[in-house]
């Protein structure tokens, strides 16, 4: 699904990613862990095409396409979704309207028919209910006045509606209580299947108890310094990053 080779990237001339190699096959969920500032969010922005993130080398292929050459919205339509570490507020923009505009923009780009307001609302209500979100969340303005937990759940709702092929979740578990965490995990697990892959960025084993990853990678100084199975996350939880990152010791 996603194949990254030797990816290097910088911000304002400062090298942040120093050669990332990562392959996520279809249907797999991979976790990335790593100290603050190691480049986890940068990786997610580079993959999704944020302005100001300069690609200095390497390749990234997503569903057979060179995504680094695509506009952010083209990547989205191709099935890439990023759950933001800090979801953005859009004052005056109704959440349901935002979601419907987004969904229909993607459907249009893929040559699929658009959903009318009735079809959309039915779908949105079903998904919101599944994520234990009150209906009125759809009526509120995008992330405005949402609590930290609500913002994160709203990201997961968007993911559920947009049904991406690859979801990158950037610390979606941070700041969630245990119930919200379970809901988020269920949102991801519900999508799991042969056509869905995920890259879960997290600091905590507790999320990975609910979303069991196929692989765990440790990112440090813009490189993947160690990869392993789910047990690697447990080792990190017990011994900290020092155990796996020689430089950080």
């Amino acid at each position, binding site marked *: 699904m996603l194949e990254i080779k030797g990816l290097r990237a910088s911000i304002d001339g400062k090298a942040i990613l120093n050669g990332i190699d990562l392959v996520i096959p279809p249907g797999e969920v991979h976790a990335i862990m790593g100290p603050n500032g190691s480049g986890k969010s940068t990786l997610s922005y580079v993959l999704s095409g944020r302005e100001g993130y300069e690609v200095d080398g390497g390749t990234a292929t997503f569903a057979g396409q060179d995504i680094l050459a695509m506009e952010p919205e083209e990547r989205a339509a191709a099935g890439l979704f990023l759950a933001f570490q800090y979801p*953005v507020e859009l004052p005056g923009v109704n959440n349901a309207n935002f979601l419907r*505009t987004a*969904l229909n923009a993607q459907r249009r780009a893929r040559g699929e028919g658009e959903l009318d307001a009735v079809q959309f609302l039915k779908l949105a209500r079903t998904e919101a209910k599944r994520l234990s979100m009150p209906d009125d969340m759809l009526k509120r303005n995008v992330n405005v006045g949402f609590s930290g937990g609500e913002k994160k759940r709203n990201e997961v709702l968007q993911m559920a509606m947009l049904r991406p092929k690859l979801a990158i979740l950037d610390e979606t578990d941070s700041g969630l209580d245990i119930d919200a965490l379970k809901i988020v995990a269920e949102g991801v697990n519900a999508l799991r299947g042969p056509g869905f892959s995920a890259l879960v960025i997290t600091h905590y084993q507790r999320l990975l108890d609910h979303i069991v990853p196929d692989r765990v990678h440790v990112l440090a100084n813009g490189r993947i310094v160690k990869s392993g199975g789910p047990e690697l996350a447990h080792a990190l939880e017990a011994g900290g990053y020092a155990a796996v990152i020689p430089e950080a010791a």
Partner: protein
Amino acid sequence: MPAVAETLETVQAATEGGYKWGFSTDIEMDMAPKGLNEDIIRLISARKNEPQWLLDWRLAAFAVWLKMDEPDWAMVNHPPIDYQDLHYYAAPKKKAGPKSLDEVDPELLRTYEKLGIPLKERAILAGVETPDDVMPQVAMDAVFDSVSVATTFKATLAKSGVIFCPISEAVQEHPELVRKYLGSVVPTSDNYFAALNSAVFTDGSFVYIPKGVRCPMELSTYFRINARNTGQFERTLIIAEEASHVSYLEGCTAPQRDENQLHAAVVELVAFDDATIKYSTVQNWYPGDSEGKGGIYNFVTKRGHCRGARSKISWTQVETGSAITWKYPSCVLQGDDSVGEFYSVAVTNNFQQADTGTKMIHIGKRTKSTIVSKGISAGRSNNTYRGLVRIDRRADGARNFTQCDSLLIGDQCGAHTVPYIESRNPTAKLEHEATTSKIAEDQLFYCRQRGLSEEDAVGLIVNGFCKDVLKELPMEFAVEAQKLLAVSLEGSVG
């Protein structure tokens, strides 16, 4: 561009014909010679078959205007206007326009398409030539598919006693009403442009809603077909008798061609006890090209007089066009418990300049006003909110709420807020909130990551910013206005 190019052509053609003083009014001509003087005013008045009092009124206004100076306090810049270099009267004339839609600038047609303007209407808006004498009929036909719809409108209005007609017709049919109210809200000496308008106005609308009548329809769709070619000095007068109600919409979301570069309209509203007037404007005159060449200069005086107790006047405007906008729709709240509202969205892009706002003059007790202004600047444009809230000594318990928000797109544009507050009554309560923000990169990226194009993202964010104003527009126009905002800001990001 076309608007201005055509202005120049017309002007040239007329100048070459030579300027003759002392022409008599019985000469058949399409257009009065250039220049402004008493003879021209006599000509206008005679052509319109006006009574003596109206001619005298015009001449008095002209005398006042001669002694006035063009105001220079607004934050707008333009080369000096040569008032002697304009035509002040033109008979309805054949338009030298494109012969068919194929000849119309494809860019303009794309804009119409984006705005969702029906195909038939596009030809009219683009000024496609139609046989001269059947023009009005054709226009109606094209818009409504059938003349009978318009006729039905007229019949419905007449049945309820509502008068809705061109003001020149009202001068003939209802002279007592026009004489009583014309200039009673905006006196001829009010300001430079109002004086000019009073001297030379050629047409506009007249609305009279009798006591207790709720106007059976929005005076909007109807207006759309009738208001074309009312000229550059438009005069509108709306009178709402006791406990009556009317909603009036002027303008059009489609960019309109116009040969006249200078526009100076006057709108007067009068509301008696318990009457409500809702006046909505969508203004999208040609703004000039992306280099700042051409475009309409729009100097408008709009004022509503809440004469009666519990009367209410509400202005809603979406201003996206014109090279220069100078406009302050105001309310004089004289009746006790009367209410004034001003909801405004002003968008400027490229080199546009807008200096707009409102005045709320509180005279009656417990009068209440609300001001919500949303200014959006992009490109190298300048956008100024200028507002006055005045509380008279007698206005016990008056209240005002003002919310002024500016949104900047890019870093070469300007937003300015100039609120004036004069309170002479200690019991008044005034609240003022102002914000300035930018469309943030993270907002755009967030939208694009969800699949929206950059332009759609800007449109969505801008519409969100303007929501409190757009929801005040009549439904049918709210949707068009939303699209208009997005189209006006195209190319402003990235």
